[in-house]
């Protein structure tokens, strides 16, 4: 039979006052913590390793293995830092999760901290979501009041403090070492690795940095066990994941399913592409993952299959665009994003994204030259693999994949503006009359 949904994290999002501790407990919350506190910490790590859970923040690194990289305790502090800086274009899963059910994350934080011997954990949430920050602060307050946080948690003798920290607007802080610098009160710029955070992370102490959804998946693994988790997904991409459908789809939203579901199956649940239109291109995991087209509708959305098809599963941010959309316009805008968000630390990314944007802007205006496509590819080759962190690599993904699949649209950019080939009012969800060329808007913001 076709794959169906598997709500675990999202199962009670529709409950009355879903974000409160009482609602969370009514739906089975904090059983995982009770089980974990009765186990040796090393067994908790083993359970997560055995589950095959892989990082849900994009890279897909095995979560339990990451925990296992911490050196043996030396009597000094060890830290858990949750990466809640969700900013990858198209990605919209952690923010609704923390809005609807912050206790899921808090329970995961406590179990993980217990497992790795951490007594002070941090949640770094982006600053541009004030109500999510309120919900997290309140969730931590409730957890303290109920004895899930603080001294001697549930009589176990284990102590944990949690600090929820708001960022201040910087995509790069989603990169784990930039996040640590930012949390230390510095400009958020990535660090040279090694040393990896497991060895020298926050305050140069052993640190685990995990994505929100990864940590929120831990309580279920403790309740159900590794074998329960592995009933979902594929052999090497186990478990459930939030798939976020957005764009030209009839019913955009969050669909929690086993890894390995396909876009064709998800689109069927979401009512298909908007009426009267057809799929043109999509991102499997945010703008930093190479584009897919209609030929990839049946690629199983697991780490291995998406990789084999030439992209990355990333954050399962499925941004869907129909045939009215100019791929040149889309890629230009993403490139302007990377240019804006480049932290400036390394030359290939700082300069390269600037040059990419300049060339793409003239192609979007229909004023490109015949050498521009080769120039774009050459620039990408000088960024990819040469940048300091994954931001630069990610910036090249939409450019190279779009040229691979839609080269003729870039060639048209040598003589015809994108908004003539693809009038923007046909792509928008409401009727309007454009007053200016989108190319004229390009680069408005510094």
């Amino acid at each position: 039979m076709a794959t169906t949904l598997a709500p675990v994290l999202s199962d009670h999002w529709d409950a009355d006052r879903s974000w409160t501790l009482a609602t969370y407990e009514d739906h089975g919350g904090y059983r995982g913590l009770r089980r974990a506190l009765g186990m040796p910490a090393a067994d908790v790590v083993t359970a997560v390793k055995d589950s095959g859970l892989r990082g849900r923040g994009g890279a897909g690194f095995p979560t339990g293995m990451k925990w296992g990289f911490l050196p043996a305790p030396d009597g000094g502090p060890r830290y858990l830092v949750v990466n809640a800086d969700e900013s990858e274009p198209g990605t919209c899963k952690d923010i609704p999760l923390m809005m609807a059910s912050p206790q899921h994350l808090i329970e995961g934080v406590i179990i993980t901290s217990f497992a790795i011997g951490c007594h002070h954990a941090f949640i770094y949430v982006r600053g541009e979501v004030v109500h999510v920050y309120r919900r997290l602060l309140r969730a931590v307050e409730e957890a303290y009041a109920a004895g899930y946080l603080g001294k001697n948690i549930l009589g176990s003798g284990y102590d944990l403090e949690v600090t929820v920290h708001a960022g201040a607007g910087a995509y790069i802080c989603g990169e784990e070492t930039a996040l640590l610098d930012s949390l230390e009160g510095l400009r958020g710029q990535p660090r040279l690795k090694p040393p990896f955070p497991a060895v020298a992370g926050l305050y140069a102490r052993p640190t685990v940095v995990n994505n929100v959804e990864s940590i929120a998946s831990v309580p279920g693994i403790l309740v159900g066990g590794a074998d329960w988790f592995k009933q979902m997904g594929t052999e090497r991409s186990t478990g459930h994941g939030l798939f976020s459908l957005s764009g030209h789809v009839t019913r955009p939203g969050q669909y929690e399913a086993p890894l390995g579901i396909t876009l064709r199956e998800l689109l069927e649940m979401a009512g298909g592409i908007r009426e009267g239109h057809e799929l043109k291109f999509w991102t499997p995991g945010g703008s930093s993952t190479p584009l897919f087209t209609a030929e990839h509708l049946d690629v199983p959305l697991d780490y291995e299959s998406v990789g084999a098809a030439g992209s990355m599963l990333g954050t399962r941010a499925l941004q869907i665009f129909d045939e009215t959309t100019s791929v040149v316009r889309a890629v230009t805008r993403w490139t302007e994003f990377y240019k804006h968000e480049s932290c400036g630390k390394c030359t290939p990314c700082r300069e390269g994204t600037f040059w990419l944007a300049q060339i793409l802007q003239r192609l979007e205006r229909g004023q490109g030259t015949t050498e521009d496509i080769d120039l774009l590819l050459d620039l990408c080759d000088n960024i990819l693999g040469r940048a300091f962190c994954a931001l630069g690599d990610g910036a090249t993904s939409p450019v190279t994949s779009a040229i691979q699949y839609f080269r003729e649209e870039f060639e048209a950019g040598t003589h015809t503006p994108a908004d003539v080939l693809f009038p923007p009012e046909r792509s928008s969800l409401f009727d309007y009359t454009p007053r200016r060329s989108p190319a004229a808007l390009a680069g408005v913001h510094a």
Partner: protein
Amino acid sequence: MSVEELTPRGEGQAHRTSYDDATRARLAADAAQIVARYPQERSALLPMLHLVQAEDGYVSPRGIAFCAQTLGLTTAEVSAVATFYTQYKRHPNGEYTVGVCINTLCAVMGGDAIWEHLCDHTGVGHDETTPDGKVTLERVECNAACDYAPVVMVNWEFLDNQTPESAAAVVDALRAGEKVVPTRGAAEVVPFKEMSRVLAGFLDGRADEGVGAGEPTLRGTVLAHEQGWTAPPFPGEEPPRAASSRAKAPARGAGTPRTGDVQSSAERPVTTAADSSSEQREKKQASSDAKEQ
């Protein structure tokens, strides 16, 4: 260097360079609470800059000096951080920041149209404030609400599924001093300074206001409940959690995994001759290995 010696800067506007004693004492008490949240005091800098914006409506020179003095930093060190992050304003902000998402997905769904309409409607552009000091327009990047596109953020509360007309009506209401209710958020949008105080980590009693989720967030949840789709039951818990009507075949992933595919951020299909040279590929792999954790 003492705070008072700072010289005023800015065109046509002199910055106040110090706080009066009562204000300073109040800010110092708040700062002490912030510092207490962290093992090392410098970590308090980002929330303290939000606190400065809660007081002055932007990161003021006196606020920078206050942070520097409190944390034992130079004003240059504080400025270096303040100028890195887009939420810190370098000149007085309006009472409400109206941010239109112009990242690709929102832009294509109509964000560009909303932006141009608001610019025409207010007569101001990016990072500019209406003459009444009420509204600062901003082009914002992806705000993690793509399933609600096009999105407008007002003081970092969500206004989902906007149109040029609805966004203009919001701006008009803000300028008229009327209450604006976010789609998913508090019972009303609070002014910039109040919002900044929350971001400094001080709750305002509004966490329980508003909804838990909007319709798009719940689509998968509701569909699964309607169809009786569930995750596999936890061992020893038959039937699965909650209503038995939900029980059906457990969900299972499609497709057979292909083994041996290493997923690297540096992998993409061959598009140029350089890609196929073994030397290039080794270089890329070495670089990827260094980044991979």
